C-alpha cells in the first residue's frame, strides 16, 4: 500500500524546501528540499523507489528507502499522510531563489473594520480609519492570496461582525482553499450566523480576559462576559472550533490556571495569551497594565505548571516568545517558534487596505493592498532587515524571539533597543 498526502494538506515551495499546511487541523510543517519533493510525490500511486529516483533527478541527492519510510511515518503521525487513499497530483515549480523571508505570508491579518460596538480601554485599534474595503476588493485580495498559496485569512477588527458581508467573505475564502478564522468579542454572533459559518470557518477566537465577570470586565465592556458565555455555547452547539484570547495584565496574571481551567470547561480548543500592547483608546491603560520582568516570570512559571493538565492547547503570541527561553534553540526550531513574525510570517491589512508588518506597528507602511499583495509583501525589506542589537542581539534565542518591535517603538522609540520587559539575563 502506497502513501498519499492527506488531500486536506496544501504545500508551497520555499527556497529552503517547502511549507505544508493541514487545513483540517491547522498544523504547519517545514520541510527541507528532499522532504518537500518526497511529500509532493505522495499521490497514493507512486512507489517510494520511484520517489527516491525523482529526488535523485531533481537534486542529485541519494536518499535511502528506510529514510523515506522514517519521514513518511513521522508525517503520518501528524496527519499529513494517509494510507489507502489517493491524493491529487502536483506539478512542481522550481524552488524560489534564496531570500530571508517566505515567498508569501502564511496568513494575512485583515481588519475588515475598525468600528466596534464595545469601547474597551485596552483596545489598540485606531478608530480614525473609517474607510473600509468593499466586498469585491476583499474578494480580489482573497484571489491573490490563493494564487500566492497563502494558507490562512485571520479576520479581525474592530468588531468584524459589524460587517454584513462577513459570512460571504468567509465562504469565499474557503471556496478558494484558504482557511478563514475570525477574532471577535462575540456579542453579535447569533445562532443563525454561526450556522451559516459552520463548515466554512476554521476557528473563531473570542476575547476573554478572566474566568469571572469582574476580572474579565476590569478593562472590557460591561456585560461582555455574559455575551462571551452565550457565544461559546452557540459555538459548542454548532460544533465550530473556538479559542480564547486572553490579554495578560496586572489583574489576571496570577489567575492563569483558573482562566485555563475555565476555557477548557467551556470547550475551547485553544487558549492564546497575548502580551499587553500600547492602547490607542486610553494612553494610561498600557502604563497600568504592562508587566514587569518579575510578572513575566510569574506568567512563565504558571504556564509551565499547568502544561498538559488541561484538555486545551495553550499558545502565546509572538511578542511573548522570550517566555520559551528554557527550550533549547533546537527545540524551538523543531516546534516552529519564530518570534516576531511581522512581515515574515504574516502581514497586517487595515480596513482601508493599507498594509503594515503587524497590527501594532503603523510606522512601517507597505503600501495599499489594492495595488497587489505580491508587491506589498516584497516591499517590507526595510523592516525585515532590522536586527535587534545589544544584549538581545547576543541572546541564544534571539533568532526565535527577535523582540516585540511594537513595544520597543512605544517604550524607547528605538526599534533596535533591548528594554522590553524580557527577564533573560544577558551575557554582555
Amino acid at each position, binding site marked *: 500500500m502506497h502513501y498519499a498526502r492527506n488531500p486536506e494538506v496544501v504545500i508551497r515551495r520555499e527556497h*529552503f*524546501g517547502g511549507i505544508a499546511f*493541514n487545513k*483540517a*487541523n*491547522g*498544523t*504547519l*510543517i*517545514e*520541510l*527541507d528540499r*528532499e*522532504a518537500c519533493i*518526497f511529500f509532493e510525490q505522495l499521490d497514493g500511486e507512486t512507489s517510494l523507489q520511484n520517489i527516491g529516483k525523482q*529526488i535523485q533527478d531533481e537534486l542529485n*541527492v541519494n*536518499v535511502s528507502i528506510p*529514510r*523515506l519510510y522514517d*519521514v513518511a511515518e*513521522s*508525517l503520518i503521525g*501528524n496527519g499529513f499522510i494517509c494510507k489507502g487513499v489517493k491524493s491529487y497530483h502536483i506539478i512542481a515549480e522550481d524552488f524560489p531563489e534564496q531570500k530571508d523571508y517566505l515567498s508569501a505570508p502564511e496568513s494575512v491579518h485583515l481588519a475588515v473594520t475598525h468600528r466596534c460596538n464595545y469601547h474597551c480601554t485596552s483596545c489598540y485599534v485606531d478608530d480614525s480609519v473609517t474607510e473600509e474595503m468593499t466586498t469585491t476588493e476583499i474578494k480580489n485580495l482573497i484571489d491573490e492570496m490563493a494564487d500566492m498559496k497563502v494558507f490562512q485569512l485571520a479576520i479581525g477588527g474592530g468588531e468584524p461582525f459589524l460587517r454584513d458581508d462577513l459570512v460571504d467573505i468567509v465562504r469565499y475564502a474557503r471556496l478558494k482553499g484558504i482557511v478563514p*478564522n475570525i477574532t471577535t468579542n462575540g456579542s453579535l454572533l447569533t445562532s443563525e450566523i454561526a450556522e451559516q459559518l459552520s463548515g466554512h470557518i*476554521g*476557528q473563531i477566537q473570542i476575547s476573554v480576559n478572566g474566568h469571572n465577570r469582574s476580572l474579565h470586565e476590569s478593562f472590557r465592556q460591561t456585560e461582555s462576559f455574559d455575551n462571551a458565555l452565550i457565544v461559546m455555547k452557540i459555538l459548542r452547539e454548532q460544533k465550530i*472550533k473556538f*479559542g480564547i484570547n486572553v490579554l495578560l495584565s496586572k489583574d489576571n496574571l496570577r489567575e492563569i490556571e483558573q482562566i485555563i481551567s475555565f476555557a477548557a470547561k467551556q470547550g*475551547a*480548543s*485553544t487558549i492564546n495569551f497575548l502580551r499587553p500592547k500600547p492602547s490607542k483608546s486610553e494612553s494610561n491603560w498600557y502604563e497600568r497594565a504592562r508587566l514587569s520582568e518579575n510578572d513575566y516570570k510569574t506568567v512563565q512559571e504558571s504556564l509551565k505548571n499547568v502544561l*498538559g*493538565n*488541561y*484538555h*486545551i*492547547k495553550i499558545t502565546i503570541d509572538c511578542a511573548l516568545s522570550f517566555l520559551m527561553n528554557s527550550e533549547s534553540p533546537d527545540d524551538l*526550531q*523543531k*516546534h*516552529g*517558534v519564530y518570534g516576531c513574525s511581522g512581515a515574515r510570517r504574516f502581514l497586517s491589512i487595515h480596513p482601508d487596505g493599507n498594509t503594515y508588518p503587524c497590527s501594532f506597528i503603523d510606522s512601517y507602511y507597505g503600501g495599499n493592498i489594492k495595488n497587489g499583495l505580491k508587491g506589498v509583501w516584497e516591499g517590507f525589506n526595510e523592516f525585515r532587515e532590522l536586527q535587534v542589537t545589544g544584549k538581545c542581539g547576543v541572546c541564544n534565542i534571539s533568532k526565535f524571539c527577535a523582540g516585540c518591535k511594537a513595544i520597543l517603538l512605544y517604550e524607547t522609540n528605538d526599534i533596535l533597543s533591548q528594554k522590553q520587559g524580557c527577564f533573560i539575563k544577558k551575557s554582555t
Partner: protein
Amino acid sequence: MKIISIRNGFECDHSSSNYEFFSSERPLTKEERKAISGYSSRSHPGTRKATFSYFGDYDLPSGAEKDLLANYFDIMVSESYDWWQFAIAFEYEKNLFDAMKKYECNGANDMGIVIEKSGKRIIVHIYCQIEYDDFSPNRFSIGIEEEEDDESDVEVDFENYRNLLINLKREILKDDFSSLHAVCSFFKPGKLDEIVEYTKVGKKLQSILVEN
C-alpha cells in the same frame, strides 16, 4: 532529508493516551525510578509502577515504550483513542522465542500479536480493541502489593488488565501458550490448526476482545 519544524494548529484533541508500566518481578531501585522519571516529567514512578498520561498531540517520546519494557518493567497496558496495547516482557531464551513466534498474527486494522526481541528481552505485544467495561473488579488478583505513591492523573483504571497480563506471563513461563492461542484464534481464525483448551486467562482475553 528532514522535517525542519512542526507547529501544531488549532485542532484540540480531547482524547488522551494513557500508559501503565508495571514491574511484577521485583521492586525498582531508587536509581531506576530516577532514570524512569527522565522519560517524562509527567510520571512519578513508584516502586512497581509508572503511569504516563498525555492529552491531544502529546505522547511518550519515540522509543521510550520499548526502552521501558526492555530495561525496567515487564508489563504494559496502554490506551489511545480506544486502541489498546498489552505488552509483556521476558528474559530472552531462544527456545521460548521460537515457540511463541507461531502465535504472531496480523488481523484487521493491524490488530493482533507481535513478538519481538528487544535487548536481552522478548516482548509480546497484543494490539487490540476491547470491551472496556467487561471486567469484574479484582477478578485476577496477583498477590503483589503496590504502594500508593503514584501521583499520576491517569483516568483509566488499568489494574484488571495488568493483572490479567501478569497471569498470562506466568502461564507462558510454564510453557503454556494456550492464551496466546486464544488471542491468535480470535484475530486469525483457522491460522492455528490444533485444538487447545483455554485457561481462565485465555477465555477472559477472548471475551474482552472486540472485532473491528
